[in-house]
C-alpha cells in the first residue's frame, strides 16, 4: 500500500515539475525578444497631412490701396488644409523711398532692401519693371500697378511649394500620377543631410589633347558660395578627378548642318563606359556625378543635336554630363575656361537638388550671380523637403510597425524601439514648428525624424531567428521532449485511472452501506 502511495507522490512531483515549471520555462526562453513599440501613437499618425502652414507676407505699396490688395491676396493664396496666408499691408517708408530713388535698376533695389526677419516674402510695388512680376535674389517680389491679381496670386502659390506633396500616399511612385510632379521627384536626389559632388574630367586621347582644368579654384570661386547658401539644407562635399581612355558609348553621326558630329538618341549609353571608371562607390552616401566629357579626336567637334544653350544633359538621380570641344590648335597646356562650365554644372546641380519651380509665363527673374540660389528658393526647398521628410518617416515607421505585427518572429531590440519613439517625437515636433512657419528648425527636426526612421527600419539586428518559422520550432522540440514526456503522460494516465477507480470503489462502498442499512 505504501509503495503505491510513494509512486503516486513521485508521479505528482514529476508532473508538477514538468508542466508547472518546465513548460513555462521553455515557453519563456524560446520567446523572441520584442521590446514594446508605441503602436497606438503610430496608428494615430495620419496618411494625409493636415499641417496648416502659416505664411507671413508683407505688402509695400505706393499708389494703390494696400489694405484691399492684402485682403485679396490672402484669400487667393490661402489653401484650406495647407496654407494660411497672412498679408500685412504697409506703405513705402522713407528709407524705402530713398533706396528706390538711389537704385540704378531693380537689381540694385533688390540688393539694397533690408531683410525683414519676421516675414517670409516681401511683395513690393514698383513704378516700372520689365515684366509684370519680377522675382529678386533675396526674399523680394516686385510687381507693377497694372499687374493682374491672378498672376500675382499664381506666382506666390508657386513659390510656396503649393504643388508639393499633400499626403503620404502621394509619395509613392506610380505611373499614373501627374507627370510634372513625377519628373521632378524622379530627377532629384532623395533627401539626406549631405551630398557628395564628384567633378570628373574625361579625356580619351591625352596624347593628342593636352588640356587641364583649374577645378580647385573653380570649386572655391563658384561652388563654395552656392554650398554656403545651402548649408541649412544639405552639406555639399566636393571632390574631383581625371579619368583617361574612357571610350564613347555611342557612335555619333555626321552633323546635318555645319561640320562636326552630333548625338541625338541613346544618350544613356554614354554613361555605361564611364561608370566603371568613375569609382563613385568609394564615396559613402548619395553622390552627384558631374562629368566634363572631351570627345575622342576623330569625332571632333561633337555636339548634342537638341542642345539649346548648353551641350549637356542630366541623368536623373545620377548627375550630369557636358561636352567640351577643345580648340584645335593650342601651344602648351590648354586651360579650360571654367565660367561657362561651372554655370552649366551648377545649373544641373540646382535641378538635381530639386529647384524646379514652375512659374507662370509673364514672370522674370533677376539673374543670379555666384550665389546661384535666391533666398526665397532656399525657403521653397526647405518647405518641399520638410514635407517630404515627414511623409517619408511617417511611411517608414507605419510600415515597420505593420511589418513587425505580421512577422512575429523578428527580434525588436532596444535600439529599434528607441529609434521609433524618437522618430515619432521628431515628426510631431517638426509638424508643430512647420505650422508656425519656422522653416529651418522644422527641416532639421524632419531630417532627424527620417534618419532615425531609417536607422530603425534598417537595423541589422532585425534578422535573428528569421529562419525559424513556427512549424519548424515544433519539429525541433518535439523529439527532445517526447522521450521524457511519454513516461510522465503514462503515469498521469495511471494516476487518473486510480483516482477514478478509488472514487468508484468509494461510491460502491457507500452504496453497499446504504443497502446494508436498507436491509437492516
Amino acid at each position, binding site marked *: 500500500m505504501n509503495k503505491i502511495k510513494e509512486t503516486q507522490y513521485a508521479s505528482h512531483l514529476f508532473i508538477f515539475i514538468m508542466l508547472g515549471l518546465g513548460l513555462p520555462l521553455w515557453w519563456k526562453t524560446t520567446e523572441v525578444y520584442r521590446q514594446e513599440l508605441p503602436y497606438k501613437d503610430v496608428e494615430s499618425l495620419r496618411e494625409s497631412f493636415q499641417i496648416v502652414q502659416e505664411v507671413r507676407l508683407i505688402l509695400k505699396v505706393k499708389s494703390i490701396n494696400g489694405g484691399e490688395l492684402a485682403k485679396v491676396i490672402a484669400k487667393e493664396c490661402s489653401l484650406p488644409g495647407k496654407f494660411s496666408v497672412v498679408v500685412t499691408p504697409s506703405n513705402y517708408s522713407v528709407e524705402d523711398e530713398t533706396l528706390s530713388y538711389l537704385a540704378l535698376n531693380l537689381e540694385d533695389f533688390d540688393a539694397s532692401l533690408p531683410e525683414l526677419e519676421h516675414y517670409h516674402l516681401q511683395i513690393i510695388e514698383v513704378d516700372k519693371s520689365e515684366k509684370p512680376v519680377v522675382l529678386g535674389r533675396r526674399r523680394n517680389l516686385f510687381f507693377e500697378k497694372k499687374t493682374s491679381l491672378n498672376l500675382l496670386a499664381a506666382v506666390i502659390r508657386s513659390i510656396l511649394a503649393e504643388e508639393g506633396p499633400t499626403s503620404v500616399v502621394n509619395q509613392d511612385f506610380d*505611373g499614373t500620377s501627374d507627370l510634372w510632379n513625377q519628373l521632378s521627384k*524622379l530627377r532629384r536626389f532623395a533627401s539626406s543631410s549631405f551630398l557628395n559632388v564628384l567633378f570628373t574630367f574625361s579625356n580619351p586621347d591625352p596624347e593628342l589633347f593636352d588640356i587641364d582644368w583649374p577645378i*580647385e579654384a573653380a570649386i572655391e570661386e563658384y561652388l563654395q558660395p552656392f554650398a554656403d547658401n545651402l548649408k541649412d539644407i544639405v552639406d555639399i562635399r566636393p571632390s574631383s578627378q581625371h579619368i583617361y581612355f574612357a571610350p564613347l558609348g555611342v557612335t555619333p553621326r555626321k552633323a546635318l548642318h555645319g561640320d562636326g558630329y552630333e548625338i541625338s*538618341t541613346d544618350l544613356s*549609353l554614354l554613361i555605361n563606359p564611364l561608370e*566603371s571608371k568613375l569609382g563613385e562607390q568609394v564615396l559613402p552616401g548619395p553622390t552627384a556625378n558631374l562629368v566634363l566629357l572631351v570627345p575622342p579626336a576623330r569625332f571632333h567637334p561633337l555636339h548634342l543635336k537638341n542642345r539649346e544653350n548648353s551641350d549637356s544633359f542630366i541623368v536623373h*538621380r545620377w548627375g550630369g554630363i557636358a561636352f567640351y570641344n577643345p580648340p584645335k590648335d593650342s601651344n602648351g597646356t590648354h586651360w579650360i575656361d571654367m565660367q561657362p562650365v561651372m554655370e552649366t554644372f551648377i*545649373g544641373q546641380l540646382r535641378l538635381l537638388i530639386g529647384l524646379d519651380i514652375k512659374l507662370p509665363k509673364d514672370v522674370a527673374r533677376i539673374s543670379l550671380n555666384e550665389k546661384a540660389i535666391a533666398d526665397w528658393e532656399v525657403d521653397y526647398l526647405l518647405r518641399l523637403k520638410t514635407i517630404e521628410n515627414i511623409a517619408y518617416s511617417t511611411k517608414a515607421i507605419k510600415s515597420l510597425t505593420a511589418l513587425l505585427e505580421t512577422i512575429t518572429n523578428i527580434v525588436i531590440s532596444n535600439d529599434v524601439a528607441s529609434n521609433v519613439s524618437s522618430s515619432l517625437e521628431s515628426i510631431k515636433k517638426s509638424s508643430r514648428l512647420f505650422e508656425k512657419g519656422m522653416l529651418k528648425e522644422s527641416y532639421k527636426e524632419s531630417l532627424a525624424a527620417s534618419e532615425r526612421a531609417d536607422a530603425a527600419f534598417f537595423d541589422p539586428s532585425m534578422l535573428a531567428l528569421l529562419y525559424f518559422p513556427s512549424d519548424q520550432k515544433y519539429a525541433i522540440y518535439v523529439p527532445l521532449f517526447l522521450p521524457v514526456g511519454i513516461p510522465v503522460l503514462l503515469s498521469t494516465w495511471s494516476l487518473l485511472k486510480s483516482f477514478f477507480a478509488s472514487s468508484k470503489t468509494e461510491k460502491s462502498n457507500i452504496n453497499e452501506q446504504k443497502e446494508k442499512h436498507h436491509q437492516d
Partner: protein
Amino acid sequence: MLIQLILAVNCLFLTTESFKPSHTNNWAVLVDTSRFWFNYRHVANLLSVYRSVKRLGIPDTQIILMMADDMACNARNPRPASVFNNAKQHIDVYGEEIEVDYRGYEVTVENFVRLLTGRLPAGTPKSKQLLTDEGSNILIYMTGHGGDGFLKFQDAEEITNVDLADAFEQMWQKRRYNEILFIVDTCQAASMFQKFYSPNILAIGSSLVGEDSLSHHVDPAIGVYIIDRYTYFALEFLESVSRDSDRRLSEFLEVCPKRHCISTVGIRSDLYQRDPREVRVTEFFGSVRPVEVYSPKETLLRFEKNLTVIPSNFRQRLTGTALHSPPRKFQYGNQLRIPK
C-alpha cells in the same frame, strides 16, 4: 525627305518614351547557391545570364553577382580562367570584365536576406548593397539545388520559401522595388514562389513541385554537365533580344516547352498587375536611364567672376605651371628595363 521625317518622328517618340515612368532604373541580383566542381553547370547558368544582362545594358554597378566562384581557377578545370556554357566552347562566359560581389563563403542565406532587405552592417561597401528605390525593376535569378519549399545554400544551410516571401514583403513595405521578375532554375523550383504575398512580382520556375529540373548536355572535354535545360533555352531566346527589341515578356514565359525541358515550367502571375504581353523583355533584362537634355534659361545663372585668368594664388598652388605652360608629353613609363 519622307524617310528623314519618319526617322525624326521616331526619335521624338523615343525621347518621350524615356520619360514615361513605368520604371526608372534596372537592377539584377544573380545568385548561384552551390559550389564544388560537379555543380559546374550552375555557374555556367549564372554567368550566361550575367553576360546577357550586361550586353543589354545593365552596368556592373547595378548588378549584384553572388557565386562561390570556384570554377575558373579550379585545379580540375582543363581550360583555366574560363567557364563555358556549351560543349562547342564558343563563348567563354567568365570573360575578362567580371565583377563578383559576394564570392566564396560569403554566399550565405543571411547575406542574401540582408542584401534584399537592406539590413547590412554599417561600413558595407556600396558595391555590396542593393541601392534600389521605388522605381527600380529588379531581375532576380537563382540557381542551384532545391527541394520542396527550400533552396540549398552551399551544402550547409537552406533558405525556405517563407523567408523569401517575408524578405520580399519587407522590400515592398520600404518600396525598394517597382516590379520584380523572379526566375528560379532548380529542382522543384515552383515551390519557392508559392508563399509570395507582395504585389508586382512575376515568378518563373523551371519545374513544378515534384519534378526535377534536368541538365542539358555533358562536355566530355570537361567531364561534367555544362548547362541546365531551362537556362539553355532561355539563353537561346535572349540571344535574339537586343537593346531596342520589341520582344515581349509573354514570349519569354513560353520559352522551354515540355518537349524541350522535360520538366514543366511553372509561372506565377497573379501578383503581377500588368499584362505580360504588354511588357518588353528589355524592361527587366535591359537598362533604362531617364535622361533629359539640359536647357537652362540663359539669363538665370550669370556668374560675374571670371576664371579665364587664373588668380595668382592658384598659380602658386600649381607650382610651376602657368596659363600657357610648355606642352606636357604623356608617355608610358619604362616598364621593361632592358639595358641599352
